[in-house]
């Protein structure tokens, strides 16, 4: 099953490689991983998108907790949560396709953030599956470049991950 793991860790050199190393050493799957400092500069927050059975997930959480630099770990899938990912797509936008591309971006609530006479760059935010859907909806051959941030997530309502 697909899980989003959120964790807070000491903002120290090498902390990211401890997590990445753990996943590769134990053969856990990483679909995406994002990390950045929080409002507290001593802490980084990492979001890992992974897949695995309940047993594997239990081990992942335990092994992450075992890392000395890791302060807190939650599996966001244990409660309701919000997930977002940002994508920038550079597409061909010349001639008759130009209007169609604008319409498509609007349908997906994307924003065109860079324009040339031949291209648009579309910014799109949403769940991973929404971003996938946008890419699938585009006509073949129109995509010049895609860049995605990987998922980040937060628990709904009172669920807070804080030290």
């Amino acid at each position, binding site marked *: 099953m697909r899980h989003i793991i959120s964790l807070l860790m000491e903002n120290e050199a*090498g902390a990211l490689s*401890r997590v990445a*190393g753990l996943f590769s050493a134990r053969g856990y799957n990483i679909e995406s991983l994002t990390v950045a400092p929080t409002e507290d500069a001593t802490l980084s927050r990492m979001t890992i998108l992974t897949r695995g059975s309940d*047993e594997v997930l239990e*081990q992942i959480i*335990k092994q992450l907790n075992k890392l*000395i630099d890791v302060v807190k770990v939650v599996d966001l899938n244990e409660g309701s949560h919000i997930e977002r990912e940002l994508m920038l797509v550079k597409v061909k936008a010349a001639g008759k396709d130009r209007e169609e591309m604008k319409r498509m971006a609007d349908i997906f609530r994307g924003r065109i953030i860079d324009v040339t006479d031949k291209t648009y760059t579309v910014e799109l935010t949403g769940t991973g599956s929404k971003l996938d859907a946008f890419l699938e909806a585009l006509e073949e051959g129109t995509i010049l470049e895609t860049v995605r941030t990987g998922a980040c997530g937060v628990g709904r309502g009172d669920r807070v991950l804080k*030290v």
Partner: protein
Amino acid sequence: MELTGAEITVRCLQEEGVEFVFGYPGGAVLNIYDEIFKQKHFKHVLVRHEQAAVHAADGYARASGKIGVALVTSGPGATNAVTGIATAYMDSIPLVIISGQVPTPAIGLDAFQEVDTVGITRPCVKHNFLVKDIAQLADTLARAFYIAASGRPGPVLVDIPKDVTQQKTEFAYPQKVSLRSYNPVTKGHPGQIKKAVQLLLGAKRPMIYTGGGVILSDGAPQLTELVRELGFPCTSTLMGLGGFPATDPLFLGMLGMHGTYEANMAMQHCDVLLAIGARFDDRVIGNPDHFFQEPKQIIHVDIDPASISKRVRVDVPIVGSVSDVLGEMLKLIKGAKEKPDEAALKTWWTQVELWRSRDCLHFDRTSKLIKPQAVIEQLYAVTHGAAFVTSDVGQHQMWTAQFYKFAQPRHWISSGGLGTMGFGLPSAMGVQLAHPDATVACVTGEASIQMCIQELSTCKQYHLPIKIVNLNNRYMGMVRQWQEFFYGNRYAESYVDALPDFVKLAESYGHVGMRIESPSDVEGALKEAFSMKERLVFLDFITDQTENVYPMVPSGKGLSEMILV
């Protein structure tokens, strides 16, 4: 007053009460060595290879219960230490390893003797640090000692660039270390402990299975009392030997791949299993699916939550220090109205004794060749079962585990998890330094001993009167055994050709060497060797080449699917 980084490093070791630093100098640690030269608080032990420095610190830690300390230089010093570090990591041994690093401005520029030590060791340490700022040095070393010994112990490495050892700052050693991200649990959950006790008291076919966690948490007294109070059969992993006296009739011997028939059968057929400080690894329970063909309920006590429900599902997990949890269990058991089911226990013991009567460790006592098992039996007798025994890895290790009946914790020093050949001699040095007046034996084989043979020189320098019991069968015995069983007797590269004359080799290092070729000479030779209290004696026993370790659970098979003699 301001101190240099090198002075601070040495002062920190003094503050921690370190007795011995095992190490080898080199460019990046010269400032630290200069400070060691000027002080008298701890002794530096110069090894002949950095792998041995870490193994010696490891042996010291296992035998004393204190933190072992090793000091190595950058680059090859650090990479040579990696095998030792990984060995300690797999067996959860508390070590602090200090490695030198090239000066901070040179890091990342492929400087002479530069290697990414923190990167290389990351997967085999409990934690590691690169100290780039001298202001952090004392604090980091204090953290290293705290992390190494608390919770599930393990090696912690501190990498110190050379310029940091030269810079100066005010020195204050932290009195207390606390980390918001690291708060290991020690006390077990009372509700879980209660549940466990109820399950144990209701068991019909109970079994107690113990591991290295008992030794590490100094839980042997509590374990011994608990097992005797309940009257349940008890087995131990390789790492746990000595946690419960092997001389007690309640003890069924070691379990696992080369465990006894009775221990493995009882594990397979029990209905309630109490696992204490053990981790159900592949060498211990074999195939987990087969293990559960006989339904059983499992109580698992371990300080590391990640060890619980890793290879097998557990019914009653208890996270906590073994000694604490067993202490709590004992209180409840003694206060309980219910007592263990006597009738059921009697039936169960009748079955266990039937398995035991199979006498699975028997061997040919009439052979004209020296049987390796007989050497260990004699070693046990001659040392009155009280020696500290280290081992290397292979057949000799298994025979020692089977035939030396360890009655006390911290007396059996062996590389269990990583299975590191070359561990035996250097770890024995650490043991002998921890217990200068004790009898220390290193049981080894002619293949393993050659992996750290250079330490005979260290033993001479520090007058370490270790007795090396070399079971010399001219084969990598365990490899040969697998090739006989599973590879159609094709002994690919397992014959050790061109062996040295170990007697002369020992003599050339200034020690005593003895070669023993006849079974009738075994006892006399051992007695003679152990009477030489001041000398290292290398006993080269020429043993039966064809002897195998039985019983054996083939890899991937179930515990009860043993090959027997």
